């Protein structure tokens, strides 16, 4: 985005030229759409003209529904980001606590909706569940971005303020906050489409208006042109939110410099660490214990605190007992009742398998695209509208089409997860490649290196930390996406069996599933973190 960092400073003609590739993309997509509508998928893909006509007819009804959804999304966005930033600020003096919060926050994105939905429904009325789900969708990414921004400051600036008698508060106000803005903006930007999707999912729990309710109505009534119209409106809203955010920040805080920040990257190391093996093992054990303890405590409090929570939620102790000697009433693959733990583990393995494959495909595609986009900037401008749109399309609306095009097996799941993880990885890696010092590239050119060497010797190693940082975010995301696909398309795995359990009021199984998913997500995050440590350690 360095090319577009200061659009106002560039001549009009150049800016117009920049607009051509994305517009071409839209045109190509429209043609592809028209072809699909007349081809094999005709029964599920309406013609563009039909959808546009429906959208014109529906213009009146978008207004109220959009405002309901956007109001929830905005509130959730503000609360989620507020909480995340406040947490990052409050824990600033305690880096260990901060790292712990960051890991516990992984739990927030990994918490399966199927378990949270009834809890929210009994605790709240009106649009509150939507607001909370919107907040839940943003809190993790913003927390990560805020911590990165606040801690990654120039140490000498801090020393200068301290030396001239400034308090810790002055350091925060004068140094840390201004320095955190670019990273924070990147986090807030990625969070914006997430908040809208969170609000829509909240509306699935029951409501009489909102884009989510309208979508359910349109799909249930088999009104495909209208469902597509709604999906387009949603995507446009999400894309607008994503694109408008830097502009808003630039208007409000004109002195801000570049916005290019790698989301999820690790800030400077916390002092010198003891690198002896024993000390490392001890550190790892301690941090795992603290994380698990934090999550269990948060879980227990959640169940305890929500009034009537015990009707639909199970605490850590009950789940433990259930695993030891409960039985499940679910009709399992064999058609007979089984013990819960083996059944759940086999479901989990399937889910992890799904998530793993989808994640790898998304990763490879994103990195390949990042390289291509870096080498040929025009490709980036072609790709960006697509990847923003992909990130913003409501999965529930897209799933029937995905299932038709890719079946209901691993292919559909893979596509869904790849779509969900592609965007954050692409953005991160591309930004990091941009930050490659020009001198290094010049050096390679001077010795006559080929483009291939340029990529393998310079771009990839340089982008590796950013890549690993995005892996940390994308891994838990993949598990969540796999469960959604299992619920909506394949009908196997943990996502499906937990849904069945919830309708049978088998909340022991549901919350047992929650525990297992949380554990798996934390382990994935931990694994990615360890990879990152190892890689950074080598680079240093």
């Amino acid at each position, binding site marked *: 985005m360095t090319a577009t960092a200061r659009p106002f400073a560039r001549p009009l003609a150049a800016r117009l030229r920049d607009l051509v590739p994305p517009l071409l993309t839209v045109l190509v997509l429209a043609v592809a759409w028209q072809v699909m509508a007349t081809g094999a998928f005709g029964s599920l893909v309406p013609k563009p003209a039909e959808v546009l006509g429906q959208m014109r007819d529906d213009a009146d*009804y978008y207004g109220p529904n959009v405002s309901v959804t956007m109001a929830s999304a905005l509130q959730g966005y503000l609360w989620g980001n507020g909480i995340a930033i406040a947490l990052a600020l409050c824990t600033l003096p305690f880096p260990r606590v901060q790292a712990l919060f960051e890991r516990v926050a992984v739990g927030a994105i990994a918490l399966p909706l199927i378990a949270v939905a009834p809890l929210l429904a009994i605790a709240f009325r*009106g649009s509150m569940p939507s607001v909370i789900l919107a907040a839940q969708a943003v809190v993790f990414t913003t927390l990560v971005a805020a911590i990165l921004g606040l801690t990654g400051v120039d140490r000498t600036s801090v020393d200068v303020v301290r030396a001239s008698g400034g308090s810790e508060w002055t350091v925060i106000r004068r140094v840390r906050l201004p320095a955190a803005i670019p990273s924070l903006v990147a986090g807030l930007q990625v969070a914006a489409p997430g908040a809208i999707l969170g609000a829509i999912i909240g509306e699935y729990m029951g409501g009489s208006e909102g884009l989510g309710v309208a979508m359910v*109505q349109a799909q*249930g009534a088999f009104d495909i042109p209208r469902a597509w119209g709604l999906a387009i409106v949603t995507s446009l809203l999400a894309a607008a939110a994503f694109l408008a955010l830097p502009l808003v920040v630039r208007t409000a805080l004109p002195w801000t410099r570049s916005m290019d920040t790698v989301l999820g990257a690790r800030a400077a190391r916390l002092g010198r660490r003891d690198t002896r093996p024993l000390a490392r093992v001890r550190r790892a054990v301690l941090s795992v214990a603290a994380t698990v303890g934090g999550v269990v405590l948060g879980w227990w409090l959640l169940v305890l605190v929500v*009034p009537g929570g015990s009707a639909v939620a199970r605490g850590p102790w009950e789940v433990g007992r259930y695993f030891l000697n409960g039985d499940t009433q679910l009709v399992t693959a064999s058609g007979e009742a089984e013990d819960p733990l083996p059944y759940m583990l086999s479901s989990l393995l399937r889910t992890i398998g799904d998530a793993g494959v989808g994640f790898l495909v998304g990763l490879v595609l994103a990195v390949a695209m990042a390289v291509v986009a870096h080498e040929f900037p025009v490709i980036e401008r072609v790709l960006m509208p697509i990847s923003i749109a992909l990130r913003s399309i409501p999965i529930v609306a897209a799933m029937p089409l995905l299932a038709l095009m890719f079946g209901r097996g691993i292919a559909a799941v893979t596509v869904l997860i790849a779509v969900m993880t592609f965007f954050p990885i692409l953005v991160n890696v591309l930004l990091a490649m941009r930050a490659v010092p020009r001198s290094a590239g010049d050096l390679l050119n001077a010795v006559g290196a080929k483009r291939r060497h340029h990529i393998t010797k310079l771009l990839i190693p340089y982008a590796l930390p950013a890549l690993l940082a995005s892996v940390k975010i994308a891994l838990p995301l993949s598990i969540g996406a796999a469960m959604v696909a299992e619920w909506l398309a394949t009908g196997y795995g943990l996502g499906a069996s937990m849904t069945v359990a919830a309708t049978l009021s088998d909340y022991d199984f549901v919350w047992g599933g929650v525990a297992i998913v949380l554990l798996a997500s934390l382990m994935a995050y931990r694994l990615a973190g360890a990879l990152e440590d190892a890689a950074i350690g080598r680079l240093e």
Partner: protein
Amino acid sequence: MTHINTPPRMGRRSFLRMTGQGAALLTAGSAVPWLSGCGTGSADGGSGGGRLTVKLAWIPNAEYAGIFVGAQDGLYGKQGLNVDILPGGPNSAVVPMVTTNRVNIGVEAIPENVATAVARGAKLKIVGAGLRKSPESWISLADRPVKHPKDIEGKKLGITLAGKNTALVFMKRNGVDVGKVKLVPIQFDPAPLAAREVDAIWGFASNQPVSLELRGIKTYVMPLADFGFNRMQSVFFVSEKTLSDRAARERARKFMAGSRQGWEAALRDQRHATDVIMEKYGAKLGLKPNEQAKSLAAIAPYVGAGGGSKASAAPGSEGLFWMSDALIEETITSLTSIGIKLDRSLFTNELLGG
């Protein structure tokens, strides 16, 4: 918190309550007071004598026509009852809302969900059957009909995950080799059938066939009731506490009476009922009048269907919603066959008495 967030039906009290929650959210650490604050919920909250909240399982549509007519025509108000209607959706949890007293009455599409909750210790009773014949069917395309359960062998059946257990057991009972059937979750969406991705879907005779037909797709409907799996559906249920508390019981009785009159009116004058639905929810949800009218016409026979012809002949105590002994027996047999433990004590007609 801004005013745009306030849903239309939300009164000043609930708005204040929500604002309070929001304000308390600011202090993330002190979550306890605000949660328990809202825990008093509006189920018993509204006071004022006659206030009742009903939670539906799905978004507002013709399936609930009688309730909307009851509200619109003042059939509840006439009895001094003020009814709040909470719509549902794909992720809606109805049973927990009733067990935790967040709402007074719940409407569940299938009685299984209530029965399993009771088997797990919830104290609930079914107090009326909105549909006295099950509209649940396998719906296939007219040019490739699935006319008999056996026809599904070697084919693909679209189900909701909630109905997976039922689907498996139903097939086994009808001699279908389950291993030869591919079950895929389609939730509520008829699109996979229209696209011929699946050969049949599990749906409501009053629902998907109507919307498919409106778009020119002819279907064949095979009601499960014709193959030994009949039961009441769209059941009204309350917690036992509601039945033992005199005032709460009286409110619930008034609600059932008003809803019954509402449905009678809706069946008598379907055009009026369609107008009511369109007026209340049409603009917001983009409902189409002809679709709602067709849907209502399709569901009407299942609402009116009695436990035999006797019910329709003798209204009064055995009018709409009344669960005849035969219907209860059929429901118990069907649910027992899919492995749910229940007995007659789950059902009571006491709120429908004259």
